């Protein structure tokens, strides 16, 4: 077998970060080596993902792991949808990694130690602040070795979830990334993070159980967990059972994607984590849930009008409840967490319309939202570092103190709100077009709801911008005049903002790509034929026998 084919690239975004995580953990004493390992691993992942985006343009790239063909073995499928998600998430993960290294999050809890990067200095600084620095104070400084390996495992889990060709592998991918996210969210084990972490972990555990149960039911009903084979077999099973399975999968993914009414956990748990961690979670974890919904709704359950109506209503509720929550917040982090929930509604809107155009728009919107939401959270991290708070009541006059920061906040904020010609506007127009084309009463309501949500988003972010940057601080104690903003933190943030803006520049090709991605999962044969290249009819007794005979290499 030729090693240097395009197939070689497919497992790399999973394998390289995973091995690098082990290496980084083994070399936890050598901080610099750890950093080099992390950056190199994620750079390789970005390169591999870029290669896959190009390769998947001609059709899905399928790899049979362990040399077993699809219905029997485990396979990774890099179709255009998976490839584009992989590329955007890898770029984002790399940017956040560089940001976090500059911030020295690996060394410190940025709230207690604003400036020092060196762990030893930091510990001394902490003890100087608080003479009887106790256990928890020292613990905050200690998880040096943990951050990089956990972060890499998170990257591997995300890549595995995107590339998974069967439901159980998707479950494993989810578990990998969730387990890493539990550690990242409770990093340092401070009181506040443990409190927020308990909620997050319990909710995530529950959704995992629901997902696992759904996988078991899928297997009981169809005798397979391979997605291509499921796409062939699910239409044949009892409609009631199919509806139950679909609803159960939607419930599991809905919790992860934070769809109303399953979104209450998100705004409470995300803001307590360190800024880079919040940025990754906000940009990526919910989108993995959205990706799973996209994948299962389009590929496995192509048409079910009842559930589509339910999804449309939920999308509307997610948008409106989320954005009304954002309007009421006085903390930038929480405000952004609520806009995150709200904009998940747009993606669900696209999925629920279940046409090729709407799915393409949803994919474009996911790509746009990953970059923009992450950039905004990174900027908020910079604001917190610059002024020591994220409360809108405290902030003020930052435009004068830090004009660069003002620009960095303003551009992605406008992008989020959907001001033309930025990519948020293009994604929303695509969704609105698809909604109008659908023409049903509910779709029109959704179109109106989207416009209202967009305006309210504009109101929320402009209010934040006004209070934090434009008008003078209402607080008695003025913000510090000078606080260091390392270039290492500003650089990756600016890069991510630039990526967000460049999405506008490449919007034409990107939109075409999103349409091809939507076509691949929705046309009902491209994906299946890529996984079963011989084109033989599956779902018959023949492949049942094959499935029954040799499954040792399933996970």
């Amino acid at each position, binding site marked *: 077998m030729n090693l240097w084919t395009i197939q070689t690239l497919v497992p790399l975004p999973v394998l390289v970060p995973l091995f690098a995580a082990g290496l980084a953990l083994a070399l936890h004493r050598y901080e610099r080596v750890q950093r080099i390992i992390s950056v190199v691993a994620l750079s390789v992942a970005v390169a591999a993902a870029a290669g896959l985006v190009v390769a998947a343009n001609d059709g899905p790239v399928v790899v049979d792991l362990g040399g077993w063909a699809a219905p029997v073995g485990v396979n990774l499928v890099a179709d255009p949808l998976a490839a584009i998600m992989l590329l955007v998430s890898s770029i984002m993960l790399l940017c956040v990694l560089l940001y976090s290294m500059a911030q020295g999050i690996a060394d410190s809890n940025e709230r207690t130690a604003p400036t020092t990067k060196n762990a030893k200095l930091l510990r001394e600084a902490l003890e100087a602040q608080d003479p*009887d620095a*106790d*256990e*928890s*104070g020292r613990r905050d400084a200690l998880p040096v070795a943990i951050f990089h390996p956990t972060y890499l495992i998170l990257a591997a889990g995300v890549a595995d979830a995107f590339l998974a060709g069967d439901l*159980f592998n998707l*479950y*494993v991918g989810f*578990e990998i990334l969730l*387990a890493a996210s*539990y*550690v990242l969210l*409770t990093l340092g*084990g401070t*009181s*506040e993070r*443990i*409190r927020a*972490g*308990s*909620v997050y*972990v*319990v909710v995530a*555990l*529950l959704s*995992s*159980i629901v997902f*696992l*149960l759904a*996988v*078991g*039911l899928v*297997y*009981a009903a169809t005798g397979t*967990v391979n997605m291509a084979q499921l796409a062939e077999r699910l239409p044949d099973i009892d409609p009631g059972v199919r509806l139950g399975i679909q609803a159960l999968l939607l419930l599991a993914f809905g919790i992860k994607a934070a769809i109303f009414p399953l979104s*209450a956990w998100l*705004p*409470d748990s995300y803001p307590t984590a360190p800024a880079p961690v919040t940025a990754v979670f906000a940009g990526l974890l919910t989108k993995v849930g959205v990706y799973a919904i996209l994948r299962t709704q389009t590929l496995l359950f192509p048409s079910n009008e009842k559930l589509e109506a339910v999804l449309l209503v939920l999308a509307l509720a997610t948008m409106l409840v989320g954005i009304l929550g954002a309007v*009421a*917040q*006085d*903390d930038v982090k*929480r405000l952004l967490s609520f806009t995150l929930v709200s904009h998940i509604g747009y993606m669900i809107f696209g999925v629920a319309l279940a046409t090729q155009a709407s799915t393409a728009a949803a994919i474009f919107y996911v790509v746009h939202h990953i970059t923009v939401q992450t950039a905004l959270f990174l900027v908020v991290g910079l604001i917190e570092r610059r002024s020591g*708070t994220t*409360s*809108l*009541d*405290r902030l003020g006059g930052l435009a004068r103190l830090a004009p660069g920061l003002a620009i960095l906040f303003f551009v992605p904020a406008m992008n989020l709100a959907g001001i033309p010609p930025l990519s948020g506007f293009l994604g929303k127009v695509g969704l609105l077009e698809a909604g109008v084309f659908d023409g049903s009463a509910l779709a029109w309501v959704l179109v109106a709801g989207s416009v209202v949500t967009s305006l309210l988003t504009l109101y929320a972010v402009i209010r934040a911008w*006004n*209070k934090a940057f434009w*008008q003078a601080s*209402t*607080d008695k104690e003025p913000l510090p005049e000078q606080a260091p903003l390392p270039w290492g933190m500003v650089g990756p943030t600016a890069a991510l903002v630039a990526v967000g803006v460049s999405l506008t520049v490449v919007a034409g090709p990107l939109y075409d790509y999103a349409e091809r991605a939507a076509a691949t999962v929705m046309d009902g044969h491209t994906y299946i034929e890529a996984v079963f290249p011989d084109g033989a009819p599956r779902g018959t007794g023949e492949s049942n026998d094959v*499935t*029954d005979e040799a*499954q*040792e290499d*399933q*996970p």
Partner: protein
Amino acid sequence: MIVLDTVPSGALLLAVGVLFGAGVYLLLERSLTRVLLGFVLLGNGANLAILVAGGRAGAPPITHSGPETEPMSDPLAQAMILTSIVITLALVAFVLAMAYRSWQLHGHDEVQDDLEDTRIARLAVADVPSYADSDSEESGSTLAEEAATARDEVALPDPSVDLPTRGRDGS
């Protein structure tokens, strides 16, 4: 015989139901330890459900040689359960550590109220707007400040229990 091979055991199905019922009940408790036990039960219930999906028990999952007619259990279901058992084990370990840390910090391991919820409830009682405008007189206290005071609202249920009520610094 052949029919029996695909019909799952009713006792196992009942066990799945009981595990899920008890698990959900425990999951609704406030103590992290009980939530954890609930998660364990739910996980076992889900695993058992997958086992049931694999068909009736009794036959070996892997047969090397033998007549074609020899009955065989579905190995895929068992492989999936093994994987999920390992995952459950790891997560249980993590939640245990988290519950212990919570006890270290607070002297109890109860999941506390959502700060924003309690804050909004307090504001609703006082009938004041939820945030201070630039032209309003006073700037309200920030969430971070309230977080510092709102933490230990769940005190130890029984003061006679011989555990030191720890401050938020774990001192």
